[in-house]
């Protein structure tokens, strides 16, 4: 048994135990670890966003634009052209970045009650933009591709197993779609079909459950290896 002598290993081990103490009950150690975790995670995220988002997307372009102004005049910082002599508003060094900056800054208006309504502008733009992006992607991935995969063809009859898989996918897809049809009660002929549908869904969840539990257990094993090997040195 070779207990770790590294200070930070001790810190990590004690914090791990403090978090795991929640399994018994809420206690002061857990609270301390929880608040520390949240504080550190927030601090880390802010630093990350500052250096990965704010500096490259806002400060660097503005600094570049200021440099262009000093070198080539004010107009050059707005009207930059690419190598094909085409106006390039996305050029790194121009002041067009001020427009999205101003829209983003409207988020801060919520702290000023008299103009707090202006926060709806960036929210509307954000929701509209992301909704527009996600709708075609969802249709493509969740509908059209599934539709293509579910259509049977003559090649599905080449071998018995392929046929079984093909029929299984076809029948269970129909049944599951019927289960998620909300415009009619599940009565009469719809009842057995929707029952097959929910049964299919549950079988899928069962398989997914087993797979995910395995992954979670491996995460837990990782923490115990840290405690018993890296910290306590009880396992080689």
């Amino acid at each position, binding site marked *: 048994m070779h207990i770790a002598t590294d200070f930070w290993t001790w810190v990590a081990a004690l914090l791990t135990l403090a978090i795991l103490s929640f399994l018994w009950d809420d206690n002061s150690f857990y609270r301390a670890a*929880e608040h520390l975790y949240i504080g550190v995670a927030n601090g880390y995220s802010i630093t990350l966003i500052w250096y990965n988002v704010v500096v490259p997307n806002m400060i660097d372009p503005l600094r570049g634009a200021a440099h262009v102004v000093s070198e080539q005049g004010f107009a050059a910082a707005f009207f930059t052209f690419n190598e094909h002599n085409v106006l390039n508003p996305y050029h790194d060094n121009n002041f067009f970045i001020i427009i999205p900056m101003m829209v983003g800054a409207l988020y801060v208006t919520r702290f000023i009650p008299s103009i707090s309504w202006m926060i709806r502008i960036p*929210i509307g733009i954000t*929701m509209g933009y992301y909704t527009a992006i996600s709708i075609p992607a969802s249709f493509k991935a969740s*509908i059209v591709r599934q539709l293509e995969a579910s259509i049977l063809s003559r090649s599905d009859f080449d071998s018995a197993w392929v046929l079984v898989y093909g029929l299984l996918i076809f029948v269970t897809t129909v049944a599951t779609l019927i289960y998620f049809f909300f415009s*009619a*009660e599940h009565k009469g002929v719809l009842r057995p079909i929707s029952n097959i549908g929910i049964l299919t869904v549950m079988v899928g969840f069962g398989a997914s459950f087993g797979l995910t539990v395995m992954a979670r257990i491996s995460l837990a094993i990782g923490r115990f290896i840290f405690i018993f090997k890296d910290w306590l040195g009880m396992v080689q």
Partner: protein
Amino acid sequence: MWYWFLAFVLLVSPGLYAQESPDSPAPPGESIDSEETIATGETISSEFQSSDMESDMGAIPAALPAEEIPTLFPPQNVVAIDVPDDDGQAVSVTWTPPTEGRPTRYILEIAGSDGFFEELTRTTLTEYTVSQLENNELYRFRVVAVYENGQSVSDETPPVAPRDHWMKLDEIPVILAILIYISLLLYFIQAARRGVELFIRRISGLTAVEDAIGRATEMGKPVLYIPGTSSIEDVATLASLNILGEVARRTVHYDVKIICPNKDPIVYTIAREIVKETYASEGRPDAFDPDSVFFLVPDQFAFAAGVDGIMVREKPATIFLMGMFWAESLIMAETGASTGAIQIAGTDAVAQLPFFITACDYTLIGEELYAASAYLGREPMLLGTLKAQDFGKLVFLFIMIVFTLLSLLFGLDAAGWVRVR
């Protein structure tokens, strides 16, 4: 005497003789001191590497007799085309294996405007899509077949330039699907506005919402609402924010405190506005607590730890876990179950649904999450949306069955009609 022996060895060793540096030839019969031997050895060694490379490139090893020279065949039919219907910067290169021999792998090489070929990638496949190229710049490609005993280079492709295109023609099925859905959407929204009764069957997880908030009222405890842990572009997050409005409406009605911690700063801003406006629209703007909707932390497990802490300290009577979740789902759902709260979960994350089903009282599965806000609100716009979703499903079910029949009866490639890249 031994000089003659050394000279004989050098003469009959053509490989070794061939490696001698042209700058410092060591003709037979000359004395070689130890330092020179080392220097020559280094030269030989480095030139052996060079010779190996030449051999790899398909050159004939000097020491092999003519009848033993292996013939290494190059890849055939190397074709480079601009990827069609894309936004540019990509070229697709395909080739067929050599007519004889089995290469262990291929090396794809690219030459730009400077004309020099350089290695792009190594692959065992016979196709590769080169991305991040400059639009309208000419590129040539060639493929090197790598064998155990050497390499063989294909012919160069004609120059090809990646270009951006106006439309992804292969995604026409997606556009048609969206148009079908929008048509249904407009029709049903108009129908709902005209006052047509739109029937929605009972969804047990959603009928429990009213009871769950009623329970919180009776117990005098808050309602905890987690709008998922994803960002705003996630459809499940958008659905969850719609449900948040309906849940907030009921909490105003029953005068119950709502707690809504957020992981994403943008989702937080929107969630806060939704709850605030719901309080205002219900005539209770004064009852809105600005601290009830708050940003917690953007880290996944730190967020789970924080939510767990809120659950055990605030002891909410009802917990809603609606939206997109990942590995933190079970941590939160288990803790919520241990506090004795009624839990209603809803997500379209297939991997997390099993955990919610086991740990929560009611679970909205996938599509039910999207239906929830319409079911709860009964607003014409949302009901029309839900109806459009339903009949959209029927349309796609119909297409699936008809295309399968066409495919089986007439041997048509019906699946290809809806194929997207």
